[in-house]
């Protein structure tokens, strides 16, 4: 009888321990130059000017869209950062006395080296995203694809999860295909 009681107590204690473990939030992994946050990846930080980035990456950018169509105010440049292929998204900003410059407004990578501060990366499942960002505003849904010149329709395979900061200012975007993460992006949230 005593043994049975002891067994029950031990089982109860073990059970409560496992329950406690389950409730604990995802632990953050150590940040590295490959860590993506809402502000950028490593030294690539949203808000940087093109000239700063050219120096950092030792690369000269050509803004093709802006050169071809002077009315455009956005452009994308492909670059290499710490062995990762990244797409850098720029926006034209007004500087002093009628001058303009290009400012980094976002970035995206499909590199398996890149992970969030919770260790979420390429190939992970959609369910892995929600738990660590439990306290943050999230938009999730199918991506829209252009069917023809005038019609857009929700994709059957492409999906995105946007994790926003409290101010709805910046976000991390997880792009998924068939419920698996295929690319990670950080960027400013555009207003209406």
């Amino acid at each position, binding site marked *: 009888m005593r043994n049975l009681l002891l067994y029950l107590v031990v089982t109860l204690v073990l059970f409560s321990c496992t329950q406690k473990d389950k409730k604990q939030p995802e632990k953050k992994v150590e940040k590295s130059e490959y860590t993506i946050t809402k502000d950028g990846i490593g030294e690539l930080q949203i808000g940087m000017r093109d000239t700063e980035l050219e120096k950092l990456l030792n690369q000269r950018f050509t803004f093709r869209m802006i050169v071809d169509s002077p009315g455009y105010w956005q452009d994308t440049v492909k670059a290499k950062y710490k062995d990762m292929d990244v797409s850098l998204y720029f926006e034209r900003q007004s500087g002093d006395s009628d001058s303009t410059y290009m400012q980094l407004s976002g970035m995206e990578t499909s590199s398996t080296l890149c992970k969030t501060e919770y260790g979420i990366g390429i190939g992970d499942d959609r369910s892995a995203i929600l738990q660590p960002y439990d306290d943050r505003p999230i*938009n*999730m*849904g199918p991506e829209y694809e252009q069917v023809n010149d005038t019609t857009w329709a929700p994709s059957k395979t492409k999906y995105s999860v946007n994790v926003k900061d409290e101010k709805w200012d910046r976000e991390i975007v997880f792009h998924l295909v068939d419920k698996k993460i295929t690319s990670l992006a950080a960027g400013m949230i555009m207003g209406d």
Partner: protein
Amino acid sequence: MKKITLLICFATVAFFASAQGTGHTVSFDGMDELKIGIGKAELEKLLKIKIVFKHIGIDERYTETIKATYKGIDMEIDLMRSDEIVARLDGMRTTSPLFKTAEGIGVGADQQTIINTYEKQLLIIDKETITLADADNLHSSIVFWMKNKKVVAIGSEPTAAFRDRE
């Protein structure tokens, strides 16, 4: 004995089937006959009450929330000033488990069930709510109010971004 057991089973099934039939539906358009956009007069007819405003038409506020009972269910009703029809129905919610979406989601459902059920639609998850936006026009929404990852209230209202834009 076998026959009695069979009879009890049949009666139980029949009871639950009829109980399901008395359920109420939440959609992007509204809740049952309470449709977003209907005017004050029609709303009064459906709620069987006379709506007396404290703000609309009296002070500068153009929205007002009233408490009402619809088919015996307690509801909160949002109204918005409208020049042609005094005010129009702009949103509603209830804590009653009798109201469910067409997919059967209502008070008591958990977050994961909502995510799995509406994985092909746009979901906006915030601290207190999960908003299911209408994928066709992103204009209307079904809102689930959450506590400890469970639905505690359900309602229908215009998507916040679109309401602000109008």
